[in-house]
């Protein structure tokens, strides 16, 4: 008999921000395809979230020859740290972000 599998909850917008920012931080300078792959996003969602992060000043876009890549700003680093802190705090009360 097949096992009953609990469907996974969709990621919150905050979790997606966190995944993108973590990817950009870990990569140093991340190409869109790399973010797409590591943050597990579709192209449409990547464009939407990258645009939001750019408008909030959390990442910045740089172009080098034909390539486009993203780096974390200081504001982005502060935001990432704050979300990481929030993640460990809320986990104690059984909340996931």
């Amino acid at each position, binding site marked *: 008999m097949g096992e009953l599998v609990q469907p996974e909850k969709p990621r919150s917008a905050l979790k997606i921000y966190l995944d993108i920012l973590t990817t950009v931080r870990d990569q140093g300078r991340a190409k869109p395809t790399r973010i797409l792959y590591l943050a597990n996003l579709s192209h449409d969602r990547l464009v939407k979230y990258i645009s939001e992060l750019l408008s909030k000043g959390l990442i910045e876009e740089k172009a080098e020859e034909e390539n486009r890549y993203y780096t974390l700003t200081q504001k982005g680093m502060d935001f990432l740290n*704050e979300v990481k*802190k*929030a993640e460990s705090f*809320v*986990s*104690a*009360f*059984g*909340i996931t*972000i």
Partner: protein
Amino acid sequence: MVSSQVLIFVFNLLSGIVALLVSYYAFRFNRLVESSVLRYVSLGFALLGVGLVAEAGISVFLGVNLVELFVVKRIGVLANAAFLVLQLLAYLVFALGYAVGAFGRPKRFNETLPVGSLLVLATPVIRDALPQFYNFALASELLMVLLLAFVVFEGILIYSRTHSKFSLMVLAGFALILGGHIIRFGSIAALSSALYVDGTIVQFFGFLSLLLFLIRSGRIGPT
């Protein structure tokens, strides 16, 4: 020899400060995470913090703790009632928060509330034999024990699911606070001032566990 008022003042003041710190961080992170459970945690710890600081202030101002108030029959009943109500409300908010988190809505908790009230009302011997405020204090402590037992139970469920050291620290904190209130309930029933101080100290260790949680999870100090 340090008097019981000084001990109550110090332990309650420190516990109150820790409670207010937890409230602040829950409020701050709620702006990011937007969770109803965090809102309850923030409100609950704020009420608890104010209640504990009020108790600390009252014990110094009146020169007696809650148990001694009954023994020496000094005035200040209203002042003491204030911190009991605040703390009771705080635990009610925690229990509601955990109920909302666990069951999606507070209906299940509402069903359990009258049980606690009935239990208190079912002690007519104590109620009739003792002054009104004594009965109120005893009932408040009993309700706090019931509410905290529910919170601890939810904490156990959360820890069994997450196995996170942070949820264990919060669980230990609430369990020790519960232990403190059980002792304080006993102290009021037995009119033992020494036992009341013991209960306050055990409760303080609960807040120490919460402080440890704040420090270890990176909320205080360098991150």
